[in-house]
C-alpha cells in the first residue's frame, strides 16, 4: 500500500487523538480524576474502638455528600484504638462536637465515615480531633449480643 504522505499523517493523527481521548474519557468519566486533582484540604483525626471494614481511600460523607477521604489508618499502641486520619476538602468546616461514625452503604456496600455536625460555634482546625466517634457495627458481636439477650430473658422467666 503506497499512501500519500499527508493522508497517512491524517490517519495517524486521528488515531493518536482518539487514543488520547479514550484515556481522558476513562480518567474523567470512568475514574475519579477530577476529585483527586484537588490537593487542597485539611486533616482531621478520629479514634475508634473498631473500624470494621474501613479502608484507606474510603469516602467521608456528610449528609450523604462526599467531603473527603480516609488518608491513613493506624493503631495506637498505648490505647489499642484505631487512629483514622481523614483529609477533608477545603470549603467544608465541621464543628468541634461533630460525630464521626463508621457506616455501610446498604447491606453489602462500601464502608465509609459519616460526619454529623453538631451545634457548637467553634470549628475544627487543621489537625483537629473528632471527640465523639461511633465504631463500626460488627455483625458477629450483634448476633452474640442478641443470643445473650435471648438467653437472659429465657432464664429470667
Amino acid at each position, binding site marked *: 500500500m503506497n499512501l500519500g*504522505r499527508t493522508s497517512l499523517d491524517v*490517519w*495517524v493523527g486521528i*488515531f*493518536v487523538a482518539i487514543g488520547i481521548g479514550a484515556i481522558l474519557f*476513562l480518567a474523567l*468519566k470512568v475514574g475519579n480524576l477530577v476529585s483527586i486533582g484537588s490537593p487542597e484540604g485539611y486533616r482531621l483525626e478520629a479514634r475508634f474502638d473498631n473500624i470494621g471494614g474501613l*479502608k484507606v*481511600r474510603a469516602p467521608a460523607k456528610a449528609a450523604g455528600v462526599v467531603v473527603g477521604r480516609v488518608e491513613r489508618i493506624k493503631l495506637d499502641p498505648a490505647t489499642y484504638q484505631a487512629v483514622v486520619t481523614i483529609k477533608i476538602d477545603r470549603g467544608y468546616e465541621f464543628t468541634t462536637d461533630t460525630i464521626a461514625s463508621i457506616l455501610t452503604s446498604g447491606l453489602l456496600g462500601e464502608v465509609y465515615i459519616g460526619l454529623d455536625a453538631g451545634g457548637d460555634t467553634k470549628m475544627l482546625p487543621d489537625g483537629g480531633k473528632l471527640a465523639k466517634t461511633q465504631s463500626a457495627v460488627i455483625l458477629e458481636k450483634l448476633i452474640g449480643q442478641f443470643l445473650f439477650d435471648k438467653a437472659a430473658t429465657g432464664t429470667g422467666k
Partner: protein
Amino acid sequence: MLSAVATGIADALGRLGSVSIAAIARLGYASRFCVAVVRETPAAFTRLHLTVREIYFSGVLSLVIILVSGLFVGMVLALQGFDVLQRYGAEQSLGVLVALSLVRELGPVVAGLLFASRAGSAITAEIGLMKATEQLSAMEMMAVDPLARVVAPRFWGGVISMPLLAALFSTMGVFGAYLVGVRLIDIDPGAFWGNMKSAVDFRFDIVNGIIKSVVFGVAVSMIAVFEGFDAKPTAEGVSSATTRTVVESSLAILALDFVLTVFMFRGLGA
C-alpha cells in the same frame, strides 16, 4: 547392553547441554539486539515520518479489530457480571465490575494479545521477508544501518500504539457494558456511572492499566522485530518466525501481567 544405555544417556545429556547453551546464546544475542535497537531511538524520531508510518501500520490498521473486540468483551462482561451480581443483590455495581475488569486487566491484556497477533506478526513477516530478499543487506552496503531505518521505527510505532489501543479497547468495553446494562437490562444509568466513578481510581487503576499496556507494547514490539531480524532467509524461516512472535508475545504478556498485577494491586485488600 549397559554401555548402550550409558551412551544413550550421555548423548541425551550432551544434546540437552548444547540446546541449553544454544538457548542461552540466543538470549544473549537477543539482549544485545535490544540494546542496539534502543540505541538507535534518536534515529527513529529525527526521521519522524518513518515512525509515523509505522504507527499507521501497527495502530490504525488494528483499530477495527480492537474496537469491535472491545465492544463485544464489554457486552459479554455485562451479561455475565449481571447474572452473578444479581444473586447478591448487587446489580448496581455492574459498572464497577466492568470498569475495573477492563481498565486493570482486560484492556491491556486482550488488546495486547490482539496486537501481537495482528501487528506483531505483520512486523515479523515484513522484516523477515526484507532479510530473505537481501533488502537489509543492500541497505547495509549502501551505508544505511537497517536497525536505524527499518527496525527502530517499527519498534517505537508498536510501543506508541499499544497504550492507545488498550485505552480504546477499555472505552469500547465500558460502552458495550452500558449498552447491555442500561439499555437492555434496564439498570439505572445514574447508579451505573456513579458507582463506577467512585470505585475506579485514576492513579491506582487507570495509570496502572496504562503502565501495563506500555510494558506489553515494549515486549511485543521487541519480540516482533527481533524474530523478524533473526529469521532464516527462507519461506519456512519467515513463517516459523511469525509463529514464534505470536506465541512468545502471548506468553510474555500473560507472564508480565501476573508480575505487574502482584506488584501493583498487592495492597488493595488491606
